[in-house]
């Protein structure tokens, strides 16, 4: 090891703080870097200050941080995702501004621009899309299958802790040191010690490793939950479509996260211990990295987009007042996509030296994925066909998705052709393609889900007007930002370039930055929508729990649901069980008897491991070996001590369950059913008047 890493603080010194750079060399680049660091610091101060001012620490600790309730963990995941989304979007805007400032070098330095696209990609994939998907799934899966919690509630909490601490490392890297400049894929040998001796790639490696462990555990958790905890009668072919997509995602996680962990740890071995997995000398081979990274990377995009497909399936069915068209074909298509996603990884590096035959095989496999995806699009359209469509916010997101996603999918089929890929790879055409599938596909889906299930989680509907503004801004902002990139990409503009010279790119860059500002406005509109909805919540309460006349089990319980979810575990007799019960007129039965219910006890282990793993990563990044060793021992000891705990559940007595449930049943019977024309009016208290004709 080098000598500057031997001190008490490893290789950490004053040069690591951006303010030092600003004092030594004040310019626009340093001002932008310092503003970013300042936003993090001010953000932390504001959060800590307001928690103290409003005396919320105790509440936060008891009700949230130590809770093992899947609903609360889900909500915390989503809050985390939205915070990270804000940073990711801001970075996107700065990058668009940099490229719009050309021709020439813009206002940022090359290194800084490289950090921006690296953090932007890493954050958006690992700390926005993944936690948002997991947050919704955490909240929904047990409610949809009629279970009281996930299979492993404490492990769930630990997963959240690891994901958050890894995300925090990216925030820390803004204030202390710098982040990787190697893109979200971090290809060696560029990210190896020979070319990148700094801390940047180490921040990337440890954030990826730790969040990867959290993700794997979540995948195991969801898979086991759906396989083993379904309510009686909930056969596989009666599962809501969303649950099917989460099964497929979980399978993808279990098999696809290890390659990422292996690749990142091997890169760490190269950097820290001077191994030769991926170095240029002594037999290292970077193609092993490329293969493993994309062996993870390709299934990853499907594990993100499949749950979004699930959300759209629920949304289209509910807001068309029809059953989902082609359920069986959708299940088969989802599984086909999950399997095929493991057979296409090589299309991410067609140009990296394989024979034409191998490229052709992977090109064809890639095009095959368009078939099940096409099946899905037609199934969704057929669901809409002759439905009684309500243009509510989730539906609007869904329609926007249907139109835009098809464009993104088709540009994917173009890229799947190796000969075409040789021309357009590493251009902005590719950037346009994957933003075209990830924004309308994943992000719009998640926002649709957020609008759709928000009343279930918090007991009141989100503001409809600001929701619509939001849809319009996201859709418009997306189109202005990314559709021009297809054109400049075809004209030959490389991706990830901080400077460019060809004046014919300029108009497109200007349009794109305007689009980026609209996306920023879209993000603000989401915040405004939340603010307005909280302010006017009394006019939007839906305590009965079924504001949209929906079909699946989660709507058959109060909003917000009690900690034990179901007072009585439902017996499932149909697909869309709740819709069928409403048709039969026995959606809200009074049970004869109640039973004691066990729910998981609060525990601090997730939070402890969150803090400890954060310190552990920081120590490794800065070569503070004594601290890393100490924290490793602490983490092991914490975990082993936890296994000595005999009591992990508390019992809610049957009498208390009866009282709560009967109070709610009284509310159900005293509420006035509302038809679909008054869905967004204050009189919608969550009791739906079933739309018999349309459902059957």
């Amino acid at each position, binding site marked *: 090891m080098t000598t500057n890493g031997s001190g008490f603080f490893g290789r950490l010194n004053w040069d690591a703080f951006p303010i030092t750079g600003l004092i030594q060399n004040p310019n626009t680049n340093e001002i932008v870097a310092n503003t970013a660091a300042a936003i993090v610091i001010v953000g932390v101060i504001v959060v800590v200050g307001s928690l103290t001012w409003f005396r919320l620490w105790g509440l936060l600790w008891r009700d949230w941080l130590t809770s093992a309730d899947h609903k609360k963990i889900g909500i915390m995941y989503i809050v985390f995702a939205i915070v990270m989304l804000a940073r990711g979007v801001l970075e996107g805007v700065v990058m668009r501004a940099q490229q719009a400032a050309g021709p020439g070098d813009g206002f940022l330095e090359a290194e800084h621009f490289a950090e921006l696209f690296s953090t932007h990609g890493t954050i958006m994939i690992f700390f926005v899309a993944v936690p948002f998907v997991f947050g919704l799934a955490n909240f929904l899966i047990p409610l949809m299958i009629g279970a009281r919690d996930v299979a492993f509630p404490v492990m769930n909490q630990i997963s959240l802790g690891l994901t958050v601490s890894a995300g925090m490392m990216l925030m820390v890297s803004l204030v202390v040191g710098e982040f990787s400049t190697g893109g979200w894929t971090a290809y060696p040998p560029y990210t190896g010690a020979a070319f990148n001796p700094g801390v940047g790639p180490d921040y990337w490696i440890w954030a990826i490793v730790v969040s990867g462990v959290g993700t794997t555990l979540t995948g195991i958790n969801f898979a086991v939950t759906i396989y*083993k905890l379904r309510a009686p009668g909930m056969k596989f072919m009666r599962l809501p479509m969303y649950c099917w997509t989460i099964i497929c995602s979980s399978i993808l996680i279990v098999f696809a996260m290890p390659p990422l962990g292996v690749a990142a740890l091997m890169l760490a071995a190269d950097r820290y211990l001077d191994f030769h997995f991926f170095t240029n000398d002594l037999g290292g081979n970077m193609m092993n990295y490329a293969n493993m990274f994309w062996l993870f990377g390709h299934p990853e995009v499907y594990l993100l987009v499949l749950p979004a497909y699930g959300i759209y399936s629920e949304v289209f069915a509910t807001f068309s007042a029809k059953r989902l068209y082609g359920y069986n074909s959708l299940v088969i298509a989802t599984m086909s996509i999950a399997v095929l996603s493991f057979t296409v990884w090589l299309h991410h590096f067609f140009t990296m030296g394989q024979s034409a035959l191998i490229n052709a095989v992977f090109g064809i496999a890639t095009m095959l994925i368009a078939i099940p995806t096409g099946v899905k699009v037609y199934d969704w359209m057929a669901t809409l066909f002759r439905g009684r469509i309500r243009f509510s916010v989730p539906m609007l997101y869904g329609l926007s998705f249907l139109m835009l996603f098809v464009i993104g999918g088709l540009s994917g089929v173009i890229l799947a052709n190796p000969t075409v890929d040789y021309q357009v790879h590493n251009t902005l055409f590719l950037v346009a393609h994957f933003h075209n599938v990830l924004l309308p596909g994943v992000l719009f889906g998640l926002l649709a889900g957020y609008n759709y299930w928000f009343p279930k989680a918090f007991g009141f509907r989100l503001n409809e007007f600001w929701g619509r503004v939001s849809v319009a801004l996201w859709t418009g902002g997306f189109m202005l930002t990314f559709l021009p990139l297809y054109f400049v990409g075809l004209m030959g503009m490389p991706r990830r370039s901080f400077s460019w010279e060809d004046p014919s790119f300029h108009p497109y860059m200007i349009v794109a930055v305007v689009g980026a500002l609209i996306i920023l406005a879209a993000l603000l509109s989401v915040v405004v929508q939340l603010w307005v909805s909280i302010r006017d919540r009394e006019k939007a309460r839906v305590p009965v729990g079924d504001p949209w006349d929906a079909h699946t089990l989660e709507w058959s319980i109060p909003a917000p649901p009690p900690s034990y979810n179901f007072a009585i575990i439902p017996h499932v007799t149909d697909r869309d069980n709740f819709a069928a019960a409403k048709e039969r007129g026995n959606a809200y039965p009074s049970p004869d008897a109640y039973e004691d219910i066990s729910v998981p006890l609060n525990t601090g282990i997730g939070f402890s491991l969150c803090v400890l793993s954060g310190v552990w990563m920081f120590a490794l990044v800065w070569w503070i070996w004594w601290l890393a060793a100490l924290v490793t021992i602490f983490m092991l000891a914490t975990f082993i001590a936890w296994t000595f705990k005999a009591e992990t559940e508390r019992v809610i007595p049957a009498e208390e369950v009866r009282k709560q449930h009967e109070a709610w049943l009284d509310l159900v019977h005293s509420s006035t059913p509302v038809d679909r024309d008054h869905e967004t009016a204050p009189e919608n208290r969550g009791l739906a008047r079933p739309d018999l004709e349309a459902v059957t």
Partner: protein
Amino acid sequence: MKRAPTHSYPGLNLGRRHASADKASEVVTFGFWVFLMSDLVYFGLMFAIYITMIDAQAGGPGPHELFDLKSIFAQTLILLTSSLTVGLAMLALKYNLPRWRIVFWFFVTLVLGLSFLVLEIRDFMSMAAKGGIPQRSGFLSAFYGLVPLHGLHVTAGCIWLIVLGIQLRIFGLTDLLMSRVVRLALFWHFLDLIWIGIITIVYFGGLTYG
């Protein structure tokens, strides 16, 4: 005719007492199987990397200079025997034998596991003395990425044996601990399975093709 209730884990003797414990252990054990599948992918990739890097010796020492088959034979015997002893612990659980029988077989397994680790570390040291260190070549990096990863798993298994042994002493044979015994046994057999892969691919494969 009413069917007799089936239990997922008759060997655990849980179901006769109450079905919910049986159900709980089914969920946890299935979860552990899924975890092992995921862990297996780690090893699978490390095997793949090793195979692609067998030739990447960069002029450094190769399998013929470094591998000591006698020591590998001894390690194999020890590890396979430990699988037998952990299986005997499972049988003690199944046939309701006294608790100390389980703890005893755990202890034997632990001793065998630790002896395996001692022999393995001795191998690494003698390899290092011949210049076989991971910094020397891609081939050695792949070797040291894979074989010590298995050793790390054995170490984790040993810690688990100690912790679970202590817990059995303190709490007795509770439902939770019984299902932990099952999972530990699964984990230990899994380590053996990986070791079979290691002798076949790393040692025999390395000597044949390296």
